[in-house]
Protein backbone atom coordinates (compact mmCIF):
# COMPACT_ATOMS: atom_id res chain seq x y z
CA UNK A 1 0.00 0.00 0.00
CA UNK A 2 2.82 2.38 0.94
CA UNK A 3 4.58 1.61 -2.33
CA UNK A 4 1.38 2.32 -4.20
CA UNK A 5 0.98 5.63 -2.40
CA UNK A 6 4.61 6.55 -3.09
CA UNK A 7 4.22 5.82 -6.77
CA UNK A 8 0.99 7.81 -6.89
CA UNK A 9 2.71 10.79 -5.25
CA UNK A 10 5.63 10.45 -7.67
CA UNK A 11 3.24 10.46 -10.66
CA UNK A 12 1.46 13.49 -9.17
CA UNK A 13 4.72 15.40 -8.74
CA UNK A 14 5.75 14.48 -12.28
CA UNK A 15 2.44 15.85 -13.59
CA UNK A 16 2.98 19.09 -11.66
CA UNK A 17 6.49 19.54 -12.97
CA UNK A 18 5.40 18.75 -16.51
CA UNK A 19 2.72 21.45 -16.44
CA UNK A 20 5.33 24.16 -15.72
CA UNK A 21 7.01 25.85 -18.67
CA UNK A 22 10.73 25.25 -19.09
CA UNK A 23 13.43 27.81 -18.32
CA UNK A 24 14.39 29.85 -21.38
CA UNK A 25 17.24 32.24 -22.02
CA UNK A 26 16.52 35.49 -23.83
CA UNK A 27 19.26 37.80 -25.00
CA UNK A 28 18.94 41.08 -26.84
CA UNK A 29 21.08 44.04 -27.88
CA UNK A 30 19.54 47.18 -26.48
CA UNK A 31 20.02 50.67 -27.81
CA UNK A 32 19.42 53.79 -25.77
CA UNK A 33 15.73 54.19 -24.94
CA UNK A 34 12.90 51.82 -24.05
CA UNK A 35 12.43 48.52 -25.85
CA UNK A 36 9.93 45.71 -25.47
CA UNK A 37 11.67 42.42 -24.74
CA UNK A 38 8.87 39.96 -24.00
CA UNK A 39 5.11 40.48 -24.18
CA UNK A 40 3.75 37.72 -21.93
CA UNK A 41 3.74 37.05 -18.17
CA UNK A 42 7.01 35.59 -17.00
CA UNK A 43 9.04 34.65 -13.94
CA UNK A 44 12.62 35.95 -14.23
CA UNK A 45 15.27 33.96 -12.38
CA UNK A 46 18.49 35.65 -13.48
CA UNK A 47 19.67 38.80 -15.25
CA UNK A 48 22.97 39.67 -16.90
CA UNK A 49 23.83 43.12 -18.30
CA UNK A 50 26.81 43.71 -20.56
CA UNK A 51 28.03 47.19 -21.44
CA UNK A 52 29.42 47.91 -24.90
CA UNK A 53 32.34 50.03 -25.96
CA UNK A 54 29.82 52.92 -26.28
CA UNK A 55 30.15 53.46 -22.52
CA UNK A 56 28.70 52.54 -19.14
CA UNK A 57 25.00 51.71 -19.13
CA UNK A 58 22.09 51.56 -16.71
CA UNK A 59 19.26 49.18 -17.48
CA UNK A 60 15.81 49.55 -15.85
CA UNK A 61 13.27 46.72 -16.03
CA UNK A 62 9.50 47.31 -16.17
CA UNK A 63 6.48 45.04 -16.10
CA UNK A 64 4.87 46.12 -19.37
CA UNK A 65 3.77 44.59 -22.66
CA UNK A 66 4.58 47.64 -24.81
CA UNK A 67 7.82 49.48 -25.63
CA UNK A 68 7.08 52.21 -23.14
CA UNK A 69 8.06 53.04 -19.60
CA UNK A 70 4.83 54.94 -18.93
CA UNK A 71 1.10 54.34 -18.64
CA UNK A 72 -1.84 56.71 -18.40
CA UNK A 73 -4.16 56.48 -15.44
CA UNK A 74 -7.78 57.47 -15.71
CA UNK A 75 -9.11 59.90 -13.11
CA UNK A 76 -9.84 58.25 -9.79
CA UNK A 77 -11.04 59.18 -6.34
CA UNK A 78 -8.95 58.63 -3.28
CA UNK A 79 -9.25 59.32 0.45
CA UNK A 80 -7.09 61.78 2.32
CA UNK A 81 -7.09 62.88 5.93
CA UNK A 82 -5.40 65.61 7.89
CA UNK A 83 -5.35 66.74 11.49
CA UNK A 84 -7.52 69.72 12.18
CA UNK A 85 -9.42 71.56 14.90
CA UNK A 86 -13.16 71.93 14.88
CA UNK A 87 -14.63 74.88 16.72
CA UNK A 88 -18.25 75.04 17.76
CA UNK A 89 -19.70 78.19 19.24
CA UNK A 90 -22.99 78.11 21.09
CA UNK A 91 -24.90 80.57 23.25
CA UNK A 92 -25.92 78.74 26.38
CA UNK A 93 -29.16 79.14 28.33
CA UNK A 94 -27.57 81.85 30.48
CA UNK A 95 -26.85 83.83 27.31
CA UNK A 96 -23.09 83.30 27.51
CA UNK A 97 -21.12 82.61 24.37
CA UNK A 98 -19.40 79.25 24.74
CA UNK A 99 -16.64 78.22 22.32
CA UNK A 100 -15.52 74.57 22.24
CA UNK A 101 -12.53 73.45 20.23
CA UNK A 102 -12.25 69.75 19.37
CA UNK A 103 -8.96 68.34 18.17
CA UNK A 104 -9.30 65.66 15.52
CA UNK A 105 -8.70 64.32 12.06
CA UNK A 106 -10.67 65.33 9.00
CA UNK A 107 -11.10 62.66 6.34
CA UNK A 108 -12.23 63.63 2.87
CA UNK A 109 -12.12 62.43 -0.71
CA UNK A 110 -9.83 63.87 -3.35
CA UNK A 111 -9.82 63.41 -7.08
CA UNK A 112 -6.58 62.31 -8.72
CA UNK A 113 -6.50 63.70 -12.25
CA UNK A 114 -5.68 61.56 -15.25
CA UNK A 115 -1.97 61.70 -15.89
CA UNK A 116 0.91 59.81 -17.34
CA UNK A 117 2.90 57.80 -14.83
CA UNK A 118 6.13 55.87 -15.09
CA UNK A 119 5.77 52.18 -14.38
CA UNK A 120 7.42 51.22 -11.10
CA UNK A 121 10.77 49.67 -11.93
CA UNK A 122 11.22 46.00 -11.16
CA UNK A 123 14.99 46.30 -10.94
CA UNK A 124 17.88 48.53 -12.04
CA UNK A 125 21.30 47.19 -13.10
CA UNK A 126 24.43 48.90 -14.35
CA UNK A 127 27.43 47.73 -16.29
CA UNK A 128 30.65 49.55 -17.14
CA UNK A 129 31.85 50.07 -20.69
CA UNK A 130 32.78 46.72 -22.27
CA UNK A 131 32.18 44.84 -19.04
CA UNK A 132 29.63 42.34 -17.80
CA UNK A 133 27.49 42.63 -14.66
CA UNK A 134 25.91 39.48 -13.35
CA UNK A 135 24.34 37.04 -13.66
CA UNK A 136 22.22 38.26 -10.75
CA UNK A 137 19.84 35.70 -9.25
CA UNK A 138 16.38 37.26 -8.87
CA UNK A 139 12.78 36.21 -8.45
CA UNK A 140 10.74 38.73 -10.41
CA UNK A 141 7.22 37.98 -11.56
CA UNK A 142 5.61 40.05 -14.27
CA UNK A 143 1.94 40.19 -15.15
CA UNK A 144 2.19 41.91 -18.53
CA UNK A 145 5.66 41.30 -19.94
CA UNK A 146 9.13 42.81 -19.85
CA UNK A 147 10.08 46.26 -21.14
CA UNK A 148 13.56 47.68 -20.60
CA UNK A 149 15.00 51.18 -20.66
CA UNK A 150 18.75 51.40 -21.35
CA UNK A 151 20.78 54.58 -20.95
CA UNK A 152 23.09 53.55 -23.75
CA UNK A 153 23.79 50.47 -25.90
CA UNK A 154 23.88 47.27 -23.87
CA UNK A 155 23.24 43.55 -24.05
CA UNK A 156 20.63 42.11 -21.73
CA UNK A 157 20.31 38.41 -20.96
CA UNK A 158 17.47 37.07 -18.84
CA UNK A 159 16.65 33.55 -17.76
CA UNK A 160 12.93 33.22 -17.46
CA UNK A 161 10.01 30.85 -17.34
CA UNK A 162 6.90 31.76 -19.28
CA UNK A 163 3.82 31.77 -17.08
CA UNK A 164 1.11 31.09 -19.65
Amino acid at each position, binding site marked *: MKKLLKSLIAVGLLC*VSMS*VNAQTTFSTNLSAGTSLCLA*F*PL*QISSITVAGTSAGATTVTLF*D*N*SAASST*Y*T*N*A*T*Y*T*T*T*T*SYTTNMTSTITNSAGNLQTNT*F*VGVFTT*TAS*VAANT*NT*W*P*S*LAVYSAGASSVSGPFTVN*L*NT*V*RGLAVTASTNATLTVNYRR*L*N
Partner: protein
Amino acid sequence: MSAATLPSIDNQACTSWNELDRDFYNKLPYFFQAKQAEHLKTWSIWSKLLGERKWDQNMGSTGKVIQKQFSPVLRAHAFPNALTDSAKKDLVITRERSTSFAPKHHKFESPMFNFLPSFQDFLKNSIEFTLENINDQVTRFNDVMARSYVFHQSRYLMIPGAPGDGVLTDAPWGAEGNSAGTAGKTNTYLGAKLNGIANVGPLSLNAINLACSHLDDQRMRPFSGSELPNGDSSPLNSMYALVIGSDAYNQFMYDPFLLEYKQIDLNILTKGFKGNLFGRVMCKLEDMPLRIKLDSTQNPGAAAYITWPAPETVELNPNADNCGETIPNPDYVNAEYEVAFLVSGGAPYEMLRVGPPPKDFGDMPWNGRVIMTDDVNVPCTDEGGNTVWDTNKYKEYLQLISHLTTGIVGTQKRGILPILFRRFRGARNPVAA
Protein backbone atom coordinates in the same frame (compact mmCIF):
# COMPACT_ATOMS: atom_id res chain seq x y z
CA MET B 1 -27.33 -15.75 -54.49
CA SER B 2 -30.82 -14.42 -54.41
CA ALA B 3 -32.63 -14.19 -51.16
CA ALA B 4 -35.93 -15.90 -50.78
CA THR B 5 -38.96 -13.78 -50.03
CA LEU B 6 -39.67 -13.79 -46.39
CA PRO B 7 -41.83 -15.43 -45.26
CA SER B 8 -41.90 -18.14 -47.95
CA ILE B 9 -42.70 -21.76 -48.22
CA ASP B 10 -41.24 -24.78 -49.93
CA ASN B 11 -37.72 -23.44 -50.32
CA GLN B 12 -34.97 -25.69 -51.49
CA ALA B 13 -32.68 -26.42 -48.55
CA CYS B 14 -29.18 -24.87 -48.75
CA THR B 15 -29.84 -22.75 -51.84
CA SER B 16 -30.02 -19.32 -50.35
CA TRP B 17 -28.62 -17.26 -47.48
CA ASN B 18 -31.60 -15.74 -45.79
CA GLU B 19 -30.45 -12.99 -43.48
CA LEU B 20 -32.89 -10.62 -41.88
CA ASP B 21 -32.33 -6.89 -42.20
CA ARG B 22 -30.56 -5.77 -39.05
CA ASP B 23 -32.89 -2.78 -38.72
CA PHE B 24 -35.98 -4.84 -39.47
CA TYR B 25 -37.52 -4.63 -36.01
CA ASN B 26 -38.23 -1.55 -33.89
CA LYS B 27 -35.67 -0.48 -31.38
CA LEU B 28 -34.87 2.54 -29.28
CA PRO B 29 -32.32 4.82 -30.94
CA TYR B 30 -30.88 5.64 -27.47
CA PHE B 31 -31.34 4.39 -24.00
CA PHE B 32 -31.32 7.37 -21.70
CA GLN B 33 -29.63 6.91 -18.37
CA ALA B 34 -30.28 9.40 -15.66
CA LYS B 35 -27.52 10.81 -13.49
CA GLN B 36 -27.66 13.47 -10.88
CA ALA B 37 -25.16 16.27 -11.61
CA GLU B 38 -22.64 16.37 -8.80
CA HIS B 39 -21.69 19.74 -7.51
CA LEU B 40 -20.26 21.22 -4.39
CA LYS B 41 -22.85 22.49 -1.99
CA THR B 42 -23.21 26.20 -1.48
CA TRP B 43 -22.55 27.20 2.09
CA SER B 44 -23.00 30.68 3.40
CA ILE B 45 -19.82 32.04 4.98
CA TRP B 46 -20.33 35.73 5.57
CA SER B 47 -23.67 35.58 7.38
CA LYS B 48 -21.99 33.38 9.98
CA LEU B 49 -19.06 35.76 10.47
CA LEU B 50 -21.12 38.93 10.71
CA GLY B 51 -23.74 40.09 13.15
CA GLU B 52 -27.45 40.44 12.57
CA ARG B 53 -29.82 43.38 12.74
CA LYS B 54 -33.60 43.21 12.51
CA TRP B 55 -35.64 45.42 10.22
CA ASP B 56 -39.39 45.48 10.46
CA GLN B 57 -42.35 47.14 8.79
CA ASN B 58 -43.14 50.80 9.42
CA MET B 59 -39.48 51.61 9.99
CA GLY B 60 -39.13 53.81 6.91
CA SER B 61 -36.79 53.33 3.96
CA THR B 62 -33.44 54.16 5.53
CA GLY B 63 -31.96 53.03 8.81
CA LYS B 64 -29.44 54.89 10.89
CA VAL B 65 -27.32 53.08 13.44
CA ILE B 66 -26.21 55.50 16.14
CA GLN B 67 -23.33 54.47 18.36
CA LYS B 68 -21.78 55.97 21.46
CA GLN B 69 -18.08 56.65 21.12
CA PHE B 70 -15.53 56.58 23.88
CA SER B 71 -13.49 59.73 24.22
CA PRO B 72 -10.03 59.46 22.66
CA VAL B 73 -6.95 58.77 24.76
CA LEU B 74 -4.97 61.95 24.18
CA ARG B 75 -2.09 61.29 26.49
CA ALA B 76 1.39 60.10 25.75
CA HIS B 77 2.54 61.40 29.13
CA ALA B 78 0.88 62.44 32.38
CA PHE B 79 2.45 65.05 34.64
CA PRO B 80 0.03 66.16 37.39
CA ASN B 81 0.81 69.21 39.51
CA ALA B 82 2.03 68.97 43.12
CA LEU B 83 -0.55 69.32 45.86
CA THR B 84 0.91 72.70 46.71
CA ASP B 85 -0.03 73.90 43.27
CA SER B 86 -3.51 74.12 41.79
CA ALA B 87 -4.59 70.91 39.98
CA LYS B 88 -4.97 70.74 36.23
CA LYS B 89 -8.00 68.90 34.90
CA ASP B 90 -8.96 66.67 31.94
CA LEU B 91 -12.27 67.22 30.22
CA VAL B 92 -13.84 63.96 29.00
CA ILE B 93 -16.49 64.18 26.30
CA THR B 94 -18.09 61.17 24.65
CA ARG B 95 -19.58 61.55 21.23
CA GLU B 96 -21.99 59.76 18.93
CA ARG B 97 -21.63 58.69 15.36
CA SER B 98 -24.10 57.27 12.90
CA THR B 99 -24.14 55.02 9.85
CA SER B 100 -26.98 54.86 7.34
CA PHE B 101 -28.19 51.79 5.52
CA ALA B 102 -31.21 50.67 3.55
CA PRO B 103 -32.90 47.31 3.20
CA LYS B 104 -32.54 45.89 -0.32
CA HIS B 105 -34.32 43.30 -2.38
CA HIS B 106 -33.62 41.04 -5.33
CA LYS B 107 -35.74 38.65 -7.41
CA PHE B 108 -34.96 35.26 -8.93
CA GLU B 109 -37.04 33.58 -11.64
CA SER B 110 -37.00 30.44 -13.73
CA PRO B 111 -38.19 30.49 -17.34
CA MET B 112 -41.85 29.52 -17.98
CA PHE B 113 -42.30 25.77 -17.80
CA ASN B 114 -44.85 24.20 -20.15
CA PHE B 115 -46.55 21.03 -18.85
CA LEU B 116 -45.61 19.01 -21.95
CA PRO B 117 -41.93 18.30 -21.22
CA SER B 118 -42.82 17.13 -17.72
CA PHE B 119 -45.39 14.77 -19.25
CA GLN B 120 -43.31 13.33 -22.05
CA ASP B 121 -39.63 13.75 -21.21
CA PHE B 122 -37.40 10.99 -19.96
CA LEU B 123 -35.83 12.95 -17.11
CA LYS B 124 -38.33 13.72 -14.40
CA ASN B 125 -38.08 16.28 -11.64
CA SER B 126 -36.60 19.03 -13.81
CA ILE B 127 -38.79 21.54 -11.97
CA GLU B 128 -37.73 20.30 -8.54
CA PHE B 129 -34.11 20.36 -9.72
CA THR B 130 -34.48 23.98 -10.84
CA LEU B 131 -36.10 24.80 -7.51
CA GLU B 132 -33.12 23.43 -5.57
CA ASN B 133 -30.77 25.30 -7.88
CA ILE B 134 -32.56 28.61 -7.33
CA ASN B 135 -32.30 27.94 -3.59
CA ASP B 136 -28.52 27.55 -3.97
CA GLN B 137 -28.28 30.74 -6.04
CA VAL B 138 -30.27 32.69 -3.43
CA THR B 139 -27.88 31.54 -0.68
CA ARG B 140 -24.89 32.46 -2.85
CA PHE B 141 -26.36 35.85 -3.72
CA ASN B 142 -26.78 36.82 -0.10
CA ASP B 143 -23.19 35.81 0.65
CA VAL B 144 -21.74 37.63 -2.36
CA MET B 145 -23.82 40.71 -1.54
CA ALA B 146 -22.26 40.82 1.93
CA ARG B 147 -18.76 40.37 0.49
CA SER B 148 -19.26 43.11 -2.14
CA TYR B 149 -20.47 45.51 0.55
CA VAL B 150 -17.55 44.72 2.85
CA PHE B 151 -14.97 45.11 0.06
CA HIS B 152 -16.18 48.51 -1.09
CA GLN B 153 -17.10 49.93 2.30
CA SER B 154 -13.92 48.93 4.15
CA ARG B 155 -11.83 51.83 5.39
CA TYR B 156 -8.50 50.32 4.31
CA LEU B 157 -7.21 48.02 1.60
CA MET B 158 -4.03 46.00 1.84
CA ILE B 159 -1.89 45.11 -1.17
CA PRO B 160 1.19 43.07 -0.17
CA GLY B 161 4.22 44.74 -1.74
CA ALA B 162 2.84 48.27 -1.39
CA PRO B 163 5.18 50.64 0.44
CA GLY B 164 5.29 50.28 4.23
CA ASP B 165 3.15 47.50 5.63
CA GLY B 166 1.08 47.28 2.44
CA VAL B 167 -2.03 48.91 3.92
CA LEU B 168 -3.34 51.68 1.68
CA THR B 169 -4.88 54.49 3.66
CA ASP B 170 -6.07 56.32 0.55
CA ALA B 171 -8.58 53.63 -0.50
CA PRO B 172 -12.04 54.99 -1.28
CA TRP B 173 -14.49 53.74 1.32
CA GLY B 174 -17.88 54.33 2.87
CA ALA B 175 -19.69 54.01 -0.45
CA GLU B 176 -21.26 51.00 -2.05
CA GLY B 177 -19.78 49.60 -5.23
CA ASN B 178 -21.62 49.01 -8.49
CA SER B 179 -21.34 46.51 -11.31
CA ALA B 180 -19.77 49.13 -13.63
CA GLY B 181 -16.82 49.52 -11.24
CA THR B 182 -17.33 53.28 -11.01
CA ALA B 183 -18.33 53.50 -7.33
CA GLY B 184 -16.72 52.39 -4.07
CA LYS B 185 -13.20 51.08 -4.65
CA THR B 186 -13.40 51.90 -8.32
CA ASN B 187 -11.71 49.96 -11.10
CA THR B 188 -9.61 53.03 -11.90
CA TYR B 189 -8.40 53.26 -8.30
CA LEU B 190 -7.55 49.55 -8.17
CA GLY B 191 -5.87 49.74 -11.59
CA ALA B 192 -3.77 52.73 -10.50
CA LYS B 193 -2.63 50.82 -7.41
CA LEU B 194 -1.91 47.52 -9.17
CA ASN B 195 0.00 49.37 -11.91
CA GLY B 196 1.89 51.53 -9.45
CA ILE B 197 3.28 48.70 -7.29
CA ALA B 198 6.25 46.92 -8.82
CA ASN B 199 5.88 43.36 -7.61
CA VAL B 200 2.49 42.77 -5.96
CA GLY B 201 3.15 39.99 -3.49
CA PRO B 202 1.31 36.80 -2.62
CA LEU B 203 -0.74 36.26 0.54
CA SER B 204 2.35 35.27 2.49
CA LEU B 205 2.46 34.55 6.21
CA ASN B 206 4.39 37.79 6.54
CA ALA B 207 1.59 39.73 4.84
CA ILE B 208 -1.01 38.12 7.13
CA ASN B 209 1.07 39.00 10.17
CA LEU B 210 1.23 42.63 9.01
CA ALA B 211 -2.54 42.61 8.46
CA CYS B 212 -3.02 41.30 12.01
CA SER B 213 -0.83 44.07 13.38
CA HIS B 214 -2.91 46.55 11.41
CA LEU B 215 -6.14 45.34 13.05
CA ASP B 216 -4.39 45.43 16.43
CA ASP B 217 -3.28 48.99 15.70
CA GLN B 218 -6.83 49.88 14.79
CA ARG B 219 -7.87 48.49 18.19
CA MET B 220 -10.25 46.03 16.60
CA ARG B 221 -11.59 43.33 18.88
CA PRO B 222 -10.45 39.87 17.81
CA PHE B 223 -12.95 37.38 16.49
CA SER B 224 -12.65 34.99 19.41
CA GLY B 225 -10.57 34.58 22.54
CA SER B 226 -10.17 36.51 25.74
CA GLU B 227 -8.01 39.36 24.40
CA LEU B 228 -5.64 38.60 27.25
CA PRO B 229 -2.10 37.31 26.85
CA ASN B 230 -1.72 33.55 27.27
CA GLY B 231 0.77 34.32 30.01
CA ASP B 232 3.61 36.74 30.48
CA SER B 233 5.62 37.32 27.30
CA SER B 234 3.22 35.37 25.10
CA PRO B 235 0.93 36.50 22.30
CA LEU B 236 -2.65 37.61 22.86
CA ASN B 237 -5.03 34.73 23.40
CA SER B 238 -7.35 35.85 20.65
CA MET B 239 -7.95 35.18 16.99
CA TYR B 240 -8.94 37.01 13.85
CA ALA B 241 -10.75 35.14 11.07
CA LEU B 242 -9.22 35.06 7.59
CA VAL B 243 -11.65 34.38 4.73
CA ILE B 244 -9.45 32.91 2.04
CA GLY B 245 -9.61 30.85 -1.17
CA SER B 246 -8.34 27.30 -1.08
CA ASP B 247 -5.34 27.77 -3.36
CA ALA B 248 -4.04 30.64 -1.24
CA TYR B 249 -4.34 28.37 1.79
CA ASN B 250 -2.63 25.49 -0.05
CA GLN B 251 0.23 27.90 -0.74
CA PHE B 252 1.13 28.22 2.93
CA MET B 253 3.11 24.98 2.87
CA TYR B 254 5.52 26.59 0.40
CA ASP B 255 5.76 29.87 2.29
CA PRO B 256 9.45 30.81 2.77
CA PHE B 257 8.77 31.87 6.37
CA LEU B 258 7.13 28.53 7.19
CA LEU B 259 9.89 26.53 5.53
CA GLU B 260 12.57 28.45 7.38
CA TYR B 261 11.06 28.30 10.84
CA LYS B 262 8.89 25.19 10.82
CA GLN B 263 9.23 22.53 13.48
CA ILE B 264 11.48 19.75 12.30
CA ASP B 265 8.63 17.23 12.63
CA LEU B 266 5.98 19.29 10.82
CA ASN B 267 4.96 16.84 8.14
CA ILE B 268 3.84 19.08 5.29
CA LEU B 269 4.63 16.43 2.68
CA THR B 270 1.85 13.97 3.49
CA LYS B 271 -0.29 15.89 5.94
CA GLY B 272 -0.08 19.37 4.41
CA PHE B 273 -0.16 22.57 6.36
CA LYS B 274 -2.94 22.98 8.86
CA GLY B 275 -3.51 24.94 11.98
CA ASN B 276 -3.87 28.52 13.07
CA LEU B 277 -1.38 31.11 11.88
CA PHE B 278 0.80 32.50 14.66
CA GLY B 279 -1.95 31.41 17.08
CA ARG B 280 -3.73 34.61 16.00
CA VAL B 281 -5.54 33.82 12.75
CA MET B 282 -8.00 31.07 11.93
CA CYS B 283 -8.73 30.50 8.27
CA LYS B 284 -12.19 30.06 6.83
CA LEU B 285 -12.11 28.71 3.28
CA GLU B 286 -14.28 30.32 0.65
CA ASP B 287 -15.04 28.18 -2.41
CA MET B 288 -15.34 31.03 -4.91
CA PRO B 289 -13.25 33.98 -3.68
CA LEU B 290 -13.30 37.43 -5.28
CA ARG B 291 -10.77 37.63 -8.13
CA ILE B 292 -9.43 40.25 -10.54
CA LYS B 293 -8.15 39.55 -14.00
CA LEU B 294 -6.39 42.16 -16.09
CA ASP B 295 -7.73 42.62 -19.61
CA SER B 296 -4.58 42.83 -21.71
CA THR B 297 -6.49 44.24 -24.70
CA GLN B 298 -7.21 47.42 -22.73
CA ASN B 299 -4.97 50.35 -21.99
CA PRO B 300 -3.40 49.86 -18.52
CA GLY B 301 -4.90 52.49 -16.30
CA ALA B 302 -8.29 52.37 -18.02
CA ALA B 303 -11.28 51.25 -15.97
CA ALA B 304 -11.92 48.30 -18.28
CA TYR B 305 -8.38 46.99 -17.58
CA ILE B 306 -9.73 45.53 -14.33
CA THR B 307 -12.25 42.72 -14.77
CA TRP B 308 -14.08 40.66 -12.16
CA PRO B 309 -14.52 37.25 -13.84
CA ALA B 310 -17.50 35.04 -13.04
CA PRO B 311 -16.47 31.83 -11.27
CA GLU B 312 -18.33 29.49 -13.59
CA THR B 313 -19.50 29.30 -17.17
CA VAL B 314 -21.22 26.83 -19.53
CA GLU B 315 -19.61 24.80 -22.32
CA LEU B 316 -21.48 25.81 -25.48
CA ASN B 317 -19.50 24.03 -28.19
CA PRO B 318 -22.08 21.61 -29.66
CA ASN B 319 -19.27 19.26 -30.70
CA ALA B 320 -17.73 19.10 -27.24
CA ASP B 321 -18.42 15.94 -25.28
CA ASN B 322 -19.51 18.02 -22.29
CA CYS B 323 -21.69 20.52 -24.21
CA GLY B 324 -24.09 22.07 -21.70
CA GLU B 325 -21.94 21.35 -18.65
CA THR B 326 -21.33 24.03 -16.03
CA ILE B 327 -17.57 24.33 -15.84
CA PRO B 328 -15.08 26.64 -14.10
CA ASN B 329 -14.57 29.87 -16.02
CA PRO B 330 -11.01 29.81 -17.46
CA ASP B 331 -10.72 33.57 -16.87
CA TYR B 332 -11.55 33.02 -13.19
CA VAL B 333 -9.17 30.09 -12.84
CA ASN B 334 -6.34 32.10 -14.41
CA ALA B 335 -7.12 35.44 -12.77
CA GLU B 336 -3.94 37.12 -11.54
CA TYR B 337 -5.27 38.67 -8.33
CA GLU B 338 -7.55 37.61 -5.49
CA VAL B 339 -9.03 39.19 -2.39
CA ALA B 340 -8.91 37.69 1.11
CA PHE B 341 -10.53 39.31 4.13
CA LEU B 342 -9.17 39.54 7.67
CA VAL B 343 -12.19 39.80 9.94
CA SER B 344 -12.24 41.11 13.48
CA GLY B 345 -14.87 40.26 16.06
CA GLY B 346 -17.58 42.40 17.57
CA ALA B 347 -19.75 42.13 14.43
CA PRO B 348 -18.20 44.99 12.43
CA TYR B 349 -20.90 44.49 9.82
CA GLU B 350 -24.43 43.27 10.43
CA MET B 351 -26.67 41.44 8.00
CA LEU B 352 -30.25 42.69 7.93
CA ARG B 353 -33.00 40.26 8.78
CA VAL B 354 -36.09 41.80 7.26
CA GLY B 355 -39.32 40.94 9.05
CA PRO B 356 -42.56 39.69 7.48
CA PRO B 357 -44.35 41.70 4.78
CA PRO B 358 -47.15 44.07 5.81
CA LYS B 359 -50.26 42.39 7.23
CA ASP B 360 -52.46 42.91 4.19
CA PHE B 361 -49.72 41.51 1.94
CA GLY B 362 -49.22 38.47 4.11
CA ASP B 363 -49.03 36.11 1.11
CA MET B 364 -46.18 38.05 -0.46
CA PRO B 365 -43.15 35.78 -0.23
CA TRP B 366 -40.02 37.83 0.28
CA ASN B 367 -37.78 35.82 2.53
CA GLY B 368 -35.97 34.15 -0.39
CA ARG B 369 -38.13 31.01 -0.29
CA VAL B 370 -38.64 29.60 -3.79
CA ILE B 371 -42.29 29.17 -4.70
CA MET B 372 -44.07 27.71 -7.70
CA THR B 373 -46.65 29.96 -9.34
CA ASP B 374 -49.08 29.72 -12.27
CA ASP B 375 -50.00 33.38 -11.91
CA VAL B 376 -48.52 34.36 -15.26
CA ASN B 377 -49.68 35.68 -18.61
CA VAL B 378 -49.41 33.62 -21.78
CA PRO B 379 -48.79 35.16 -25.21
CA CYS B 380 -51.25 34.35 -28.01
CA THR B 381 -51.99 35.86 -31.42
CA ASP B 382 -55.09 37.82 -32.43
CA GLU B 383 -56.70 38.02 -35.90
CA GLY B 384 -54.32 40.76 -36.94
CA GLY B 385 -51.28 38.63 -36.12
CA ASN B 386 -50.41 40.76 -33.09
CA THR B 387 -49.23 39.23 -29.85
CA VAL B 388 -51.74 39.72 -27.06
CA TRP B 389 -51.56 38.41 -23.53
CA ASP B 390 -54.06 35.95 -22.16
CA THR B 391 -54.29 34.63 -18.63
CA ASN B 392 -52.90 31.21 -17.83
CA LYS B 393 -56.47 29.94 -17.35
CA TYR B 394 -55.67 26.48 -18.69
CA LYS B 395 -52.86 26.19 -16.14
CA GLU B 396 -50.49 24.97 -18.86
CA TYR B 397 -47.56 27.02 -17.56
CA LEU B 398 -45.83 27.49 -14.27
CA GLN B 399 -42.82 29.40 -13.03
CA LEU B 400 -40.50 29.29 -10.02
CA ILE B 401 -39.93 32.61 -8.33
CA SER B 402 -38.12 33.87 -5.28
CA HIS B 403 -38.05 37.32 -3.75
CA LEU B 404 -35.24 38.02 -1.32
CA THR B 405 -35.15 40.96 1.05
CA THR B 406 -31.74 41.50 2.47
CA GLY B 407 -29.24 44.16 3.38
CA ILE B 408 -26.11 44.81 5.36
CA VAL B 409 -24.84 47.65 7.46
CA GLY B 410 -21.24 48.41 8.35
CA THR B 411 -21.03 49.66 11.90
CA GLN B 412 -17.24 49.40 12.11
CA LYS B 413 -15.67 49.71 8.69
CA ARG B 414 -12.13 49.40 10.02
CA GLY B 415 -13.07 45.98 11.38
CA ILE B 416 -12.47 43.99 8.19
CA LEU B 417 -9.34 44.41 6.10
CA PRO B 418 -9.56 43.27 2.46
CA ILE B 419 -6.20 41.97 1.21
CA LEU B 420 -5.69 42.14 -2.57
CA PHE B 421 -2.84 39.81 -3.48
CA ARG B 422 -1.09 38.22 -6.46
CA ARG B 423 -2.18 34.60 -6.85
CA PHE B 424 0.42 31.89 -6.63
CA ARG B 425 -0.09 28.15 -7.03
CA GLY B 426 2.00 25.12 -6.21
CA ALA B 427 5.63 25.74 -5.38
CA ARG B 428 5.32 29.54 -5.58
CA ASN B 429 4.23 29.64 -9.21
CA PRO B 430 2.45 32.89 -10.08
CA VAL B 431 -0.87 32.42 -11.85
CA ALA B 432 -1.03 34.01 -15.29
CA ALA B 433 -3.66 34.20 -17.95
